[in-house]
């Protein structure tokens, strides 16, 4: 298996490594860097659990090879938190019980982060549309929608 040098800015820190061509970004994050908040659930791009931001846009870390992320900026859930301080989306998940087992939560939080950056005040329909690619098996999504609405208001959006 051929090795390739990669340099990726992950959560603001430049990382250089040599990786096999087939190593997924998810496994690079989890196995090489111990950034284990990026979880794997279907491993073929369906469930959204492994969602990270690559250059500010959501991407499935299970489908992306590490070499494809060379030169990019990658943000994981760990990158949204400074110290013990939770960001507004995470606070909203806590306040509204938007999570149960927590396994899908990182993917939701990052998807919502992108959504609210693009559209700080989404309608309920836009929230449902925006989260259509993320599966949760615990919550029935009701409180995730409420969490997004709470996050909008915590971020100072909303009318």
């Amino acid at each position, binding site marked *: 298996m051929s090795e390739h040098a990669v340099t990726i800015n992950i959560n603001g820190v430049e990382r250089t490594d040599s990786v*096999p061509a*087939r*190593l997924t970004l998810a*496994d690079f994050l*989890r*196995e090489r860097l*111990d*950034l*284990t*908040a990026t*979880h*794997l*659930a*279907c*491993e*073929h791009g*369906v*469930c959204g*659990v492994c969602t990270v931001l690559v250059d500010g846009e959501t991407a499935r870390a299970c489908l992306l090879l590490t070499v494809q992320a060379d030169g990019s900026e990658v943000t*994981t*859930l*760990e990158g949204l*938190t400074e110290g*013990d301080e*939770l960001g507004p989306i*995470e606070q909203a*998940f*806590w*306040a509204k*019980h938007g*999570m*149960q*087992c*927590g*396994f*899908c*939560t*990182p993917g939701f*939080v990052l998807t919502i982060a992108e959504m609210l950056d693009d559209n700080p005040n989404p309608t309920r329909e836009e929230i*449902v*549309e925006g*989260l*259509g*690619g*993320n*599966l*949760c*098996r*615990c*919550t*029935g*999504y*009701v*409180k*995730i*929608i409420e969490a997004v609405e709470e996050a909008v208001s915590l971020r100072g959006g909303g009318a």
Partner: protein
Amino acid sequence: MSLFGASIRRKEDPRLLRGDGRYLSDIKRHGMVHAVFVRSPHAHALIRGIDSSAATADPRVVCVFTANDLPAGLPPLPCIDAEETTKPFNQPILAADKVRFVGEPVALLVVEGDRYIAEDIAALVDVDYEPLPAVATAEAAMAPDAPLVHFESNVVDVLEYSLGDAPAALAAAPHTLSERFVTQRYAGTPLETRGVIVEWDEARRGLTMWSSTQVPHSLKATLVGYLGLPENSVRVIAPDVGGAFGVKLQPYPEEIVLGLAAAQVGRPIKWVEDRYEHFLASTHGREQYHDVEVGYDDDGRILAIHDHAVTNTGAYLQRLTLVEPFIGVSMLSGPYNIEHQQLVSTVVMTNTTPLNPFRGVGHVQAAFTMERIVDLVAAAVGVDPGEVRRRNMFSADVFPLHRGIGNVLAGDIIYDSGDYQECLSRALAAAEWDDFRREQESARADGRHLGIGIGFFVEETGLGPYESGRVRVEPSGQVIVFTGACSSGQGHDTVLAQITADELGVDFDDVVVVHGDTDLVASGVGTYASRSAPIGGTAVRNAAGSIKEQAIRIAAEMLEASPQDLELVDGEVRVKGSPASSVSLAQVAGRVAPGQPLPEGVDNYTLDATDIYHPPTNTFSYGCHIATVEVDVDTGVVTLLRHVVVNDSGALINPLLVDGQVQGGVALGIGGALLEEIAYGEDGQPLNANFMDYLVPAIGNMPEMMVEHMIVPTPLNADGMKGAGEGGAVGAPAAIANAVADALLSLGAKITETPLGPETVYRALQDAS
């Protein structure tokens, strides 16, 4: 404010939201090697031989384990709910000479490196199979010339229950109707798959196993048996578990094999199931059809029922496989008073993945079958479905109600408490039934087909045999709660802290909950069957109650008062009527910290109490779901509009979390009603073992949801809790199927099976026209 009953935020969440969750696959151990399982690609085949020489030639291979490498005479996986009549078709730890379903483990391969390399090398293990004819459905398996999964017959057991004289009552009934109702095979599919890490400690001759399990203590007991080690040499840790739903409630062969391999390998071994493996090798649920005949009168009173249920339990009996066939018939009549019942449940083996309980086991099929029947009766006599239910339901003055129908594991079925009529009334009001009927009528004038349906269920919850609770107060004032219940997302850390803080009057933030580690929690059972609040919670309540008594006894000396003059309020023991005279619980704990003489009349150091709570019998939660739908008759697509639930799971520790349980259960029920089906070809090959083809509900599938709680406390435990984890999943398919049938009533479409995907609905419409 009392903490019991308060909708407070969870203790668990900040850690998980920072990315600091520790799920099984997040754990790394020094020197860890990686495992994969070689699994059968055949539904049914003889194993002629296994040649692993090409694999073992690779220097990165640490070991290959086949059935031949296991200790001789290793018993198969136990089934603990078998009856004397049940044939012992149990799963071997690794297949030896025959495989019986696609995905059955045949060999374990352990390699140095990572999972990628392990999978590369696993492809080199050459298993010589001689394929045999396979059978995938119960009907095919019961045919006279069917291939035999085991020997003599594919029928493992036939269970029978009866009440009154159903044959005579059916013969005498003014009207009868017969129908077959089919519930498909589907599964819990937690987003985190199973996974195991084992580590052998040669110095202490002991094993530590981390496993994504609901039942660490059961797993430990199983390992102790298989490994022949003393109890203190086996430690099982369930780390954060990313959903379970019953799929992780039994010890699996992979855990046994890895446990056996650990000492030989001498290094930590990690195995994480991938999604494809999960669909093949983690247990499925449901697949059951009911052939029913009911007798009823002109008023829609159901007089007698005969039901023959047939369950496809897959290739082997797992730990609790028979619960699906038992409950599917014994809970059939749910809230209804049906005097004459004859219930037969046939258990059939096929070359498919084994069944074991998951969220709503048996009750889902029972509620779907019964609630469809009630609607058919209602339509036949021309009476409103709500009214027909009211005429058949038990009244609120019958409890405790001995149903007179047996049920293995739980003993007799005795409904503890409730008010079914009230629950129905509240649900009809919340769903605005009459208004919807008007809306439906005007939509029909526009060519649109709206429907409304009721799904009422009664559900056995709070299953025994017991759970442990231990409460310990440290001299700092910290209160530590140890529970044998094991969370997979339910929020045990929060609700058990609420009960403890409520009992002791201490600050919620001063309570921490420890679970999921057999070295830290001496005894326990685990989390399933909606039991952690009623059973685990009661154990914690009792243990905290003993702490209270102990604290008052100790404080009596400190305050120079008599115990009967003292009370524990706001975390302080104080003299009644003289609150200035008080000591804090922390000071009390300090008074009995070791290293000093004990107060007179006090026997034990440390403020510590354990309760093992055995419930006298089960609780029975219930609820009424009402779904409204729109059906596109050109495409068969069902769109959910609104879903109302009125649920009685007794007293609520934290209504916010119970709402979450119900909503999540409804989502799973929606999956079962409309989307999810594990499909096999006739040859036993799985057809959709991935999340692209197996559809679990996404956010866009969800209707507007409304959950109301009705609280009729059970007399069976002090707080009146009945268990809330599963009901959402039970009522939803029945309500949705009835709503679809209602939408299509005038078109004559028969709705008798789930999932109600577009093709099924379209076919029902075609058959009717």
